[in-house]
């Protein structure tokens, strides 16, 4: 069976891969948006911390025989704790300064993390096995669906929706949104805003580490895996705008799919299609698809 001269199986396969990439975009851009809302910092280290999450899983398996499911819980906690140390030690001194300093500082942090991992692990990728429960593929009749890829999309979407629920529908989320709007007033009501900021950063980078563990079996674990991704995620953030949580989930998944389709029809452009879309969005709707111009 063919569609536009492309075998349907190949088309759906790429579409699925696109959704997998899109899930990573969604989880990472969501983390960036949550952090930016509370800290007013664009976290350039997000890609490095995503890479760190994948390495926590790899190290846990290689040296401590801890499997995938343990890592899925462990990596966000370890990286989240590391993030909170960074926030207390470095980021907290910048909140009164121009936003650009936050970008520059986290860029420096990204360089330090990436360089350290490159020293210990080289630049070549390490394979990470798919967990046994998710090995193999399911025949859906019209396509063969690899189980692990389906899991990645489901798990990321679930985490994104849970984050949305946490922020938009719970009391803690209400504090958070109020803190984003007016931290001083919230502090005056007796909420420990600095603690909230630290936890928010830990949560945001924990999300990145979660995506890193999900990515480990799909792509090879390498110190360089985060630095390209973060640039694409920045473009995703520009396209979607950081105003809406559901918006950033939709934008991430959508762009992953578009990228997957580009791989089928015009492979040469698959690396750049997201940037081209960003340029087009800037021309038509500079604030981003879901953004609010301030």
């Amino acid at each position: 069976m063919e569609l536009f001269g492309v075998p349907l199986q190949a088309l759906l396969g790429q579409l699925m891969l696109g959704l997998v990439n899109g899930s990573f975009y969604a989880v990472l851009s969501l983390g960036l948006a949550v952090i930016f809302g509370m800290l007013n910092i664009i976290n350039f280290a997000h890609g490095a911390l995503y890479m760190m999450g994948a390495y926590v899983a790899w190290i846990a398996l290689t040296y401590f025989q801890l499997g995938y499911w343990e890592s899925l819980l462990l990596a966000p906690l370890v990286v989240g704790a590391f993030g909170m140390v960074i926030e207390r030690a470095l980021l907290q001194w910048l909140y009164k300064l121009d936003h650009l300093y936050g970008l520059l500082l986290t860029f420096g942090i990204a360089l330090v993390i990436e360089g350290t991992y490159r020293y210990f692990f080289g630049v070549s990728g390490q394979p990470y096995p798919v967990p046994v429960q998710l090995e193999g593929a399911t025949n859906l009749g019209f396509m063969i669906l690899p189980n692990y890829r389906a899991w990645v999309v489901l798990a990321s979407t679930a985490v994104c929706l849970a984050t949305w629920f946490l922020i938009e529908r719970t009391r803690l989320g209400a504090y958070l949104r109020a803190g984003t709007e007016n931290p001083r007033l919230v502090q005056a009501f007796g909420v420990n805003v600095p603690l909230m900021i630290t936890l928010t950063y830990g949560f945001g980078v924990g999300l990145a580490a979660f995506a890193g563990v999900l990515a480990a079996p799909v792509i090879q674990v390498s110190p360089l895996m985060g630095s390209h991704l973060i640039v694409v995620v920045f473009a995703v953030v520009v396209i979607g705008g950081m105003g809406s949580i559901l918006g950033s989930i939709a934008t991430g998944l959508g762009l992953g799919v578009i990228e997957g389709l580009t791989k089928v029809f015009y492979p040469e452009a698959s690396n750049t299609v997201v940037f081209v879309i960003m340029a087009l969005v800037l021309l038509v709707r500079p604030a981003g698809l879901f953004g609010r111009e301030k």
Partner: protein
Amino acid sequence: MLKLDLDRAAYLVFLVAAAAAPFFVYPVLAMKILCFALFACAFNLLLGFTGLLSFGHAAFLGSAAYATGYAMTRWAVTPEIGIAFGTLIATALGAVFGGLAIRRQGIYFAMITLALAQMVYFFCLQAPITGGEDGLQGVPRGALFGLIDLGNDTAMYYFVLAVFLGGFWIVHRTVHSPFGQVLKAIRENEPRALSLGYTVDRYKLLAFVLSAALSGLAGATETLVMGFATLTDVHWSTSGEVVLMTLVGGVGTMLGPVVGAIVITALQSELADKVGPWVTVIMGAIFIANVLAFRRGIIGELAARLGSRP
């Protein structure tokens, strides 16, 4: 008055040091420093004097480097034509990227320039004319105006110095012109500049294009010095390096980027053999230290100390 004389004295010291440099420093290193100094000055025109943080300036350095390399190897033109061609390409690219990026402000501006520059990186990686992973190798220096052989390192050095001084003079003239005053007004308070009737977007775009053109000039010259154009020239890490140079030297000062370029380039060439992969970590640590404790940079700090004296 004293401030002005200090400036003059500093310029003079630098000029003498630059003229004498090839007798004390490995000429290729000295030339590389000059190219990066020009690159950092061009970048500083945007960050320091207009308040726009571009995280994609490698695109202009690199596209000019490739264009010049291509013109020199394929068309066998003289170096001044090759450099002009490279600069032209970077200028055109600057007009396109600038037009897009100035539609957003602050943090978004930085992310947009970074993303657009990544497009240039992938173009250079994939296009048939750029040599993929190898880049363009064996770019000849040629003879300036067909007369002066630049294969000689000393002749090449003074040519590069002349290019640098020309570029530096343009930045200096721009900053100290009425146009530069408007740029500074935009940096300090964009809504006010807008309400005073200045077409802010046009000023920003012009500053961006000028900065891109000078970055291109630096990249084109660097290709002639090194004899190659590679993916490093268009990589985001190069964009980060020029930010670091400007930051270390002092954002918004005339000589800061020059000092920053000297410090960072010399440090990198010194450390590369000794510590290998740790260079990235050290650069990152300098970034962190700079942002946290040393935001004025070397020259900014000096100026503040000297200026505060009665």
